[in-house]
């Protein structure tokens, strides 16, 4: 039996966990979606294994990512597990992103296989890779296809997820099975996930919050409901999905939880009665939001949890179970999860209790590194002499008290969060600078409130190129969530005495075209 208290028991893989659950609960519903599709554990396993068989026949191997490019559906979950059964890690690609971006990611990851669906219209990325269509594989399922040799170890890669990189190219974080198994098994134990629980998958799979939504259900023989793509933005659809499918565990980015709570009235509250836990991560959870939450939900029935963690340490590494009273000034990010340690450092030094420094992480959750970028990996994943451990330096500022309780204080670089999505403003700037007419530029985040924020690009346009051309170029290079909401053409950028660009002045909105 898997337990976070027994490290050896974590020597397994996500697809092994699924297979074991399918043997225990063959006739239970595993996954269903809005199209009416509903698969039992046995049916789900058969399909996933046949996808695995087809991919392995096409050359899928351990540790070499297989791309997936499709909209959210029950079949998308089948395809992801299918990639794992083939022995390879999955590499999620955004169907809404420009083809050039997806080609870039496939080539950075050196992926040689890509799975798509007939039901998702996509601009096919360029590149030399084998292309498999999910529906064709499933139509061709034979019994012998599921007799698939198990070839993986716990330290094989489970997935590679790309995040924004300040140099202008995204970077692919490599996560091993043992790390995900630890993170998910911990969550199952801490929140007592039970086979009658229902989870909802609503986070786009290119973000790592989706990882626990995609896989946690099979750790307890629970079920998964897959929300229609695009509907995760709307409180109306979330309420009706929770009500209809009796969802008990759900995730929100705090800013979305806020609009959700504003929307929820007495009628909707009744429909949400199946909920047990609301998990927040991706942004700071404010005291006002927690108060609003417990103003509407009764702690005896529905509890609020604050998670924190970077993609580089497998989704989340700290947790705080928010109580309805004594909320204090700020909500901590809490304590480290099982088999994970948090350290507050200042370079080579480990800081004392209460001191604010850089949050560093060690333990089972650490990523292997950035794919095909050993230099970058060595910069962020280092051996710390004083701690005597390999750590990941998060770039986040935090402090820890004597009980190991951690408070988060933001960042001191140009990484920002827009609706929970991590964006390096430098990546947008570097993309802009690759346009021949952009002489100089600065990209800032203009925060009107916790909920309303805009990415603004200030541009010095050297040869007065049409701004529309520059906008089109950016659209063809970056995913939607990184495209500036506003462009301002300027002739000069405000500078500090040091010569650095004065971002503060730009953020205060003084400068306009």
């Amino acid at each position: 039996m898997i337990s976070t208290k027994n490290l050896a028991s974590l020597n397994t893989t996500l697809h092994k966990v699924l297979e074991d659950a399918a043997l225990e609960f063959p006739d239970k519903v595993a996954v269903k979606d809005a199209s009416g599709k509903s698969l039992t554990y046995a049916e789900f396993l058969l399909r996933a294994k046949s996808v695995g068989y087809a991919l392995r026949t096409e050359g899928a191997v351990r540790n070499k990512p297989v791309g997936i490019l499709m909209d959210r559906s029950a079949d998308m979950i089948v395809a992801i597990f299918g990639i794992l059964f083939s022995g390879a890690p999955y590499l999620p690609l955004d169907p809404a992103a420009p083809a050039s971006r997806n080609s870039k990611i496939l080539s950075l990851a050196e992926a040689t296989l890509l799975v798509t669906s007939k039901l998702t219209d996509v601009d096919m990325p360029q590149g030399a890779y084998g292309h498999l269509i999910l529906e064709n594989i499933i139509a061709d399922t034979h019994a012998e296809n599921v007799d698939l040799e198990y070839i993986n170890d716990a330290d094989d890669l489970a997935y590679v997820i790309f995040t924004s990189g300040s140099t202008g190219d995204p970077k692919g974080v490599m996560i091993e099975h043992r790390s995900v198994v630890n993170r998910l098994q911990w969550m199952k134990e801490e929140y007592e996930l039970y086979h009658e629980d229902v989870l909802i998958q609503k986070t786009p799979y290119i973000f790592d919050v989706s990882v626990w939504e995609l896989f946690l259900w099979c750790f307890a023989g629970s079920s998964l409901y897959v929300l229609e793509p695009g509907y995760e933005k709307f409180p109306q659809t979330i309420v009706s999905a929770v009500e209809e499918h009796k969802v008990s565990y759900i995730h929100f980015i705090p800013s979305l939880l806020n609009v959700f709570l504003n929307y929820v009235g007495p009628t909707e509250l009744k429909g949400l009665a199946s909920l047990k836990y609301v998990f927040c991560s991706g942004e700071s959870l404010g005291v006002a939001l927690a108060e609003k939450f417990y103003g509407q939900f009764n702690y005896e029935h529905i509890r609020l949890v604050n998670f924190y963690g970077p993609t580089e340490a497998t989704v989340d590494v700290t947790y705080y179970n928010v109580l309805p009273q004594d909320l204090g000034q700020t909500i901590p990010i809490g304590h480290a999860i099982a088999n994970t340690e948090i350290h507050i450092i200042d370079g080579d030094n480990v800081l004392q209790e209460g001191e604010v420094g850089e949050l560093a992480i060690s333990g089972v959750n650490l990523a292997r590194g950035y794919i095909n970028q050993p230099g970058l990996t060595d910069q962020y994943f280092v051996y710390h002499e004083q701690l005597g451990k390999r750590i990941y330096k998060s770039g986040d500022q935090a402090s820890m008290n004597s009980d190991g309780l951690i408070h988060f204080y933001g960042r001191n670089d140009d990484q920002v969060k827009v609706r929970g999505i991590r964006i390096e403003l430098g990546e947008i700037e570097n993309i802009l600078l690759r346009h021949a007419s952009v002489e100089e530029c600065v990209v800032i985040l203009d925060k009107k409130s916790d909920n309303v924020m805009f990415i603004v690009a200030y541009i010095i346009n050297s040869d007065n190129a049409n701004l529309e051309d520059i906008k089109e170029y950016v659209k063809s290079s970056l995913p939607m969530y990184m495209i500036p909401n506003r462009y301002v053409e300027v002739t000069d950028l405000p500078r500090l005495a040091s010569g650095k660009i004065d971002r503060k002045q730009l953020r205060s909105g003084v400068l306009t075209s």
Partner: protein
Amino acid sequence: MNITENKKMTEVNPEINNQIVAFISAHTGVNEIDQHENIFESGLVNSLFAIELMTYIERKFNIKVTIQDLSLDTFSTVSKINGFVTSKMTSNV
């Protein structure tokens, strides 16, 4: 039925208009908003704000935004929001 509905969509109810503009202004600090300006494309608001706006108009005008209405295009200009609210209020009567 369709013809009268279309007609209603083009009529501007100044009272509703003022309230929508006031709500957007309060959140953006921008007071002058063109009737036909696409508030998402111009960068005035984002999709998260659209949810706040939906909740606001539901309460303010006592209407229900249903799952069928969930298209950002419906809420992309002051004129379209006005038309949506007006048609919903009429169909409620």
